[in-house]
């Protein structure tokens, strides 16, 4: 059938160079047969009439010029079927759970095509995560890509799990699935996720792709694409609402840098390749809703910022592509507040289309803006107090200072299993803490909302 070439001229890092082949397609999947009988897989990176460069996924250990190379004639594809739900697969799509191979309904190119912007539907369905700092001030909507920017040692995994457990669209019982892709996380972390999935029964409606820390770095570049291909299949062929959790994007980018260096490319900022923006976009942009299709793909990625630095290329480029970010703060974590989400640098760009009348409540935006403004001012005040003392503040400023504490203590802080309802809990708490301030200080809230929702007025009218 297909020819096996034994013309390897050079092995360098994860790359092999071959000569005298018949024409080989760019991006083609390659099988490498080692002298000891094992096989490895790779992908064509550069192809010309004379030389072909192949990137090997499982690492080049054990390879030599006696190894045979077979070109499969097709690009990397994932076998998909509805039976994937409940399965645990490796980072390159092979079963890890001891179960049978997946009987494919279809085989889909993992790179995916880009969605025609004209076919996209602007995301607008409010997803309730039960976490006030997200629902109240950084609302997630269906089809959005909203990453968690965290740091090492912070409880981002717990937050992600809490969201995976609690996320729902109010008043609907549509089919819901989770696709979880682990890229370079430790075995321990992976077990933590798996245990929680099993305990809560979430595994039945989840597809898990695991590329662990000791798996080859090159495979990490394929894992998220496998996961997103599975997600798109479930969303657009089986009308499911899919939440994709990719963790950790930082490990993915490290793998990208490693590959760039191996190919001797001209590096961009901090050694990361110049095309990292485009590459990350090809992952993040695979979230969305298509007009006329019932399903959707929502992405919730985890990214640990090296040195908690939000200007590092990885969070920086991500922030330019994703529709906002949830920033986990070390300062709040040290204060013992869970979830330690700092709302000030956090943002949900699609919030405005997911809130308000018909979605949450008419006063949502005004209340959120008001809390933001007061909390920002209150935090500035803390710096001032450290210098001049509390007594030097005007009465108004003291109130603002107190608000910042109340906000952290009542609005931000919540239980790990506390599933707050947007109206009954989140908005109620918001109004309760705003009511601690004189009404004249609530300049961002329309008078009609104050009359309707302010606790002082509510009690009177009841």
């Amino acid at each position, binding site marked *: 059938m297909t020819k096996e070439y034994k013309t390897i001229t050079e092995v360098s890092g994860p790359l092999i160079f071959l000569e005298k082949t018949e*024409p080989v*397609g*760019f*991006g083609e999947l390659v099988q490498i047969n080692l002298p000891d009988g094992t096989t490895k897989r790779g992908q064509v*990176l*550069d*192809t*010309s*009439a004379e030389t072909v460069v192949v990137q090997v996924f499982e690492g080049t250990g054990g390879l030599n010029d006696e190894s045979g190379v077979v070109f499969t004639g*097709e*690009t990397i594809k994932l076998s998909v079927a509805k039976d994937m739900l409940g399965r645990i697969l490796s980072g390159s799509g092979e079963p890890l759970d001891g179960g049978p191979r997946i009987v494919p309904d279809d085989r889909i*190119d993992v*790179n995916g*095509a*880009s*969605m*025609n*912007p*004209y*076919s*996209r*539907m*602007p995301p607008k369905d409010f997803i309730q995560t039960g976490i006030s700092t997200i629902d109240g001030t950084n609302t997630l909507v269906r*089809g*959005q890509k909203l990453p968690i920017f965290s740091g090492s040692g912070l409880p981002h995994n717990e937050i992600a799990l809490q969201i995976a457990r609690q996320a729902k669209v109010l008043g609907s019982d549509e089919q819901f699935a989770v696709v979880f892709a682990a890229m370079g996380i430790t075995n321990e972390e992976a077990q933590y996720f798996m245990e929680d999935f099993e305990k809560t029964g979430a595994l039945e409606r989840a597809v898990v792709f695991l590329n662990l820390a000791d798996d080859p770095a090159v495979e990490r570049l394929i894992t998220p694409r496998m996961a997103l291909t599975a997600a798109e299949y479930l969303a657009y062929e089986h009308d499911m609402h899919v939440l994709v959790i990719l963790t950790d994007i930082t490990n993915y980018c490290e793998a990208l840098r490693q590959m760039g260096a191996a190919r001797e490319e*001209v*590096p*961009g*900022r901090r050694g990361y390749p*110049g095309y990292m923006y*485009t590459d990350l*976009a*090809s992952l*993040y*942009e*695979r979230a*969305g809703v298509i*007009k006329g299709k019932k399903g959707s793909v929502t992405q919730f990625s985890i990214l640990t910022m090296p040195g908690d630095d939000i*200007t590092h290329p990885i969070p920086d*480029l991500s*922030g*330019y*592509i994703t*529709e906002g970010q949830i920033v986990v703060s070390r300062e709040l974590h040290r204060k013992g507040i869970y979830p330690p989400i700092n709302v000030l640098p956090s*943002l949900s760009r*699609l919030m*405005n*289309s997911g809130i308000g009348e018909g979605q949450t409540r008419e006063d949502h935006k005004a209340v959120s803006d008001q809390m*933001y403004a007061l909390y*920002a*001012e209150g935090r500035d005040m803390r710096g*001032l107090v450290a*210098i*001049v003392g509390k007594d*030097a503040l005007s009465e108004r400023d003291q109130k603002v200072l107190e608000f910042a504490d109340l906000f952290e203590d009542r609005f931000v802080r919540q239980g790990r299993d506390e599933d707050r309802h947007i109206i009954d809990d989140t908005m109620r708490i918001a109004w309760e803490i705003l009511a601690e301030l004189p009404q*004249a200080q609530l*300049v*961002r809230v*329309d*008078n009609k909302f104050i009359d309707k929702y302010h606790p002082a007025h509510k009690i009177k009218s009841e």
Partner: protein
Amino acid sequence: MEVKGEIYRVAGPVVTITGIKPKMYDVVKVGYEGLMGEVIKIQGDKATVQVYEDTSGIKPGEPVENTGMSLSVELGPGLLESIYDGIQRPLKVLQEKMGDFIQRGVTADGLDREKMWDFKSVVSSGDSVKGGDVIGVVQETTNIEHKIMVPPDMSGTVSEIKNGKFTVAETICVLADGTGLQMMQRWPVRQPRPVAKKLMPNKPLITGQRILDGLFPVAKGGTAAIPGPFGSGKTVTQQQLAKWSDTDIVVYIGCGERGNEMADVLNEFPELEDPKTGRPLMERTILIANTSNMPVAAREASVYTGITIAEYYRDMGYDVSLMADSTSRWAESMREISSRLEEMPGEEGYPAYLSARLSEFYERAGYAHVLSGGNGSITVIGAVSPPGGDFSEPVTQNTLRIVKVFWALDAKLSQKRHFPSINWLTSYSLYTQGLADWFTENVAPDWIDLRDNAMDILQQESELQEIVQLVGSDALPEDQQLTLEIARMIREYFLQQNAFHPVDTYCPFDKQYKLLKSISRYGEMANAALESGVPMGDIISVESKDELAKVKFEEDFDSALNVVMTKMDDEFAKLGGK
């Protein structure tokens, strides 16, 4: 005739071909699927092509065909209301042809070949015409009359001219030398269209955004840059400009940005009304959407496609504004292609020609006397996304050397929910002097003074804030406390503007003037009261001052402002003083 060559090497979007002798920037069709690409390097018998589509599976040895033309756009009636990708393929047609995801190897005409347009000639046979002359008109949308012009490089005597309904490809005019003219013409995107003479811009672009019109105006035909870190409101500002600026035509380029954001624009624009004409905004708009996951080479081309279309409408004598969101993504696409070509990199990996390309692009803006007779303009507003919000990076720096207006977005302000989060201390406009006459004549004689005064107060505020940080505001003398209060009013009442509020989203100049005037009036009365011994606490707690905060949201602004200002006069009269 077409000459066929073959592929020698494929490495991502960069393909090396051999066997044909193309010219630089010729468009070639690569592989059995005929993927579109452009020649960017010629070396010996080989040529390097950047391909606008995904090259997976393409093999060496596949055929290559030279079209012999450089990358061009089709210009003619039907451009308005269109939504294109970076190489002028209508996204709607692509969707019909291949569904919700963009597959490769599909071609689509930029202009609809079937649609009939009602052509009315304005020349008669025997007239002599030259490049740029109008030979007839077509009503393209309700408010835009599309002028059919002789292509800039042609001239002659009209021997035959038609009237009636035609498609864009049918001949409507024949010149004496036998050349047939159609309503459609082609123009290579990398070559600026000629004008008779460039003029100095002298009218402001009115955007209805208080901080832009009021403090940092851009002229029609000017250039502006909006740099800012992510989440600081670049895209919202660009979209506000596209919605509300008082130009005839808007070209909006979504270059390497988010798909969902483009979808939002695509859905929202057809429903929004043009405040000037009451017609849907889409009727004056051309959208170019090349999202971040679409091919990188097409992203590089999208900016040129956009500006060429803008120039075409300028040539008809229209005022065009072009928004490019974001030029950083454009620069990155140059970097990506340059690194695949293994060119020697300049600063931060960007190619050494970055600065030249940016200035060539911005130089295509301007106010000009056009070949067809009147005057037209292109205002270019480019968003810049500096990595980490650091303005010292190459794209921001090279842009700032060219543009005349700088709207600096500030992440700190957006965290405080101060929108638009344009920093009033670091932003600047070099047009304020040149436009002073226009403001004095058309807004109010004291407008310039009011504005300078407001800027002065904001400047004082930033100096006073440094002291407040150390000793607290109570330690300041009363008149300085009052300055802080007035500065706060300018910031919150005037500069802050809610893009999502139905009334506040667009603020006419008249309203801007009255609002600033009222704040200044409070300042005068408060200072006078303070001098005559009224306690500071009383001056700050006048109710009408807080009521002024919400006047900008009122539908009936004038009467609401009157009520507040009358109350303010009363309150100050009661405070009395001496």
